[in-house]
């Protein structure tokens, strides 16, 4: 009999997890980060970051996420995006409301569930004037840099 040390997972546990995951991928919607390992949970949404002398601009693609379902917090040089995406509304608004047919899924690629993404910005930002805009599923967060982090022109005087 093979002995296992406490805290070590049995190799077959991994296999079972993989099989569960495979089966789930056929029948349910994927999590937002896709059918990857849980450690990739922090990888949604993907972010593009741009920097000017005055601001740091963050852009993320969040299709199907309502502004109400999104929470943005800042702390120091860190921005946290937190939110969730619900099951898609398959029944159209123009079908009668008493219609309670359940959809039959043929393909589920769009992830649903919750996400939290923490991101360190290149500089400290001024939390008072952060602006966030969500349009057509694209989030743009404009963060003005903290005064101490903006470039300052030094005038040179000659004596």
């Amino acid at each position, binding site marked *: 009999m093979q002995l296992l040390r406490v805290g070590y997972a049995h190799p077959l546990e991994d296999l079972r997890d993989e099989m569960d995951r495979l089966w789930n991928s056929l029948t349910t919607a994927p999590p937002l980060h896709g059918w990857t390992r849980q450690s990739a949970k922090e990888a949604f949404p993907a972010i*593009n*970051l741009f920097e000017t002398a005055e601001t740091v601009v963050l852009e993320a693609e969040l299709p199907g996420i309502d502004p109400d379902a999104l929470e943005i917090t800042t702390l120091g040089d860190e921005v946290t995006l937190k939110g969730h995406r619900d099951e898609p509304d398959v029944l159209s608004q123009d079908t009668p409301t008493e219609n309670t047919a359940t959809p039959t899924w043929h393909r589920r690629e769009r992830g649903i569930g919750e996400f939290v993404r923490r991101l360190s910005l290149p500089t400290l930002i001024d939390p008072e004037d952060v602006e966030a805009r969500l349009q*057509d599923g694209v989030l743009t967060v404009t963060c003005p840099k903290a005064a101490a982090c903006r470039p300052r022109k030094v005038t040179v005087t000659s004596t």
Partner: protein
Amino acid sequence: MIASSPTSPAERNQLSGSSAEQRLTYRPNVDVATCDDILVLIADIPGSSASAIDVQVEDGVLSIDAAVPARSLPGTAVRREYGIGGYQRSFQIGADFDASQTAATYRNGVLTIRVPRLAAEQPRTIPITAG
């Protein structure tokens, strides 16, 4: 029943140096369901607009072609985790659906397409005569 076309456009998240100039085409994530004899396709197409999306049903193939205008953000890129480009994908839906009744809406970066099934032929009762 509903098969995605075997096209393999550029991988999402594949980044290149000068992605601002380079126009890539991506394959959107899609949910497909049937509900009450209506085929429903839901596609993630962030950054497009209703007028820039072309949905066609022809010969039993439903195709989505969405243009995404380039977004210019100021300054220099510090981090690039995704590229920006159009979305294309097509599905074989067969001849059971009524292409002329296709309806599509675009909201919050999500395209929803509904195609009703063709009205089924009424079952015929064949009278039996005793003779």
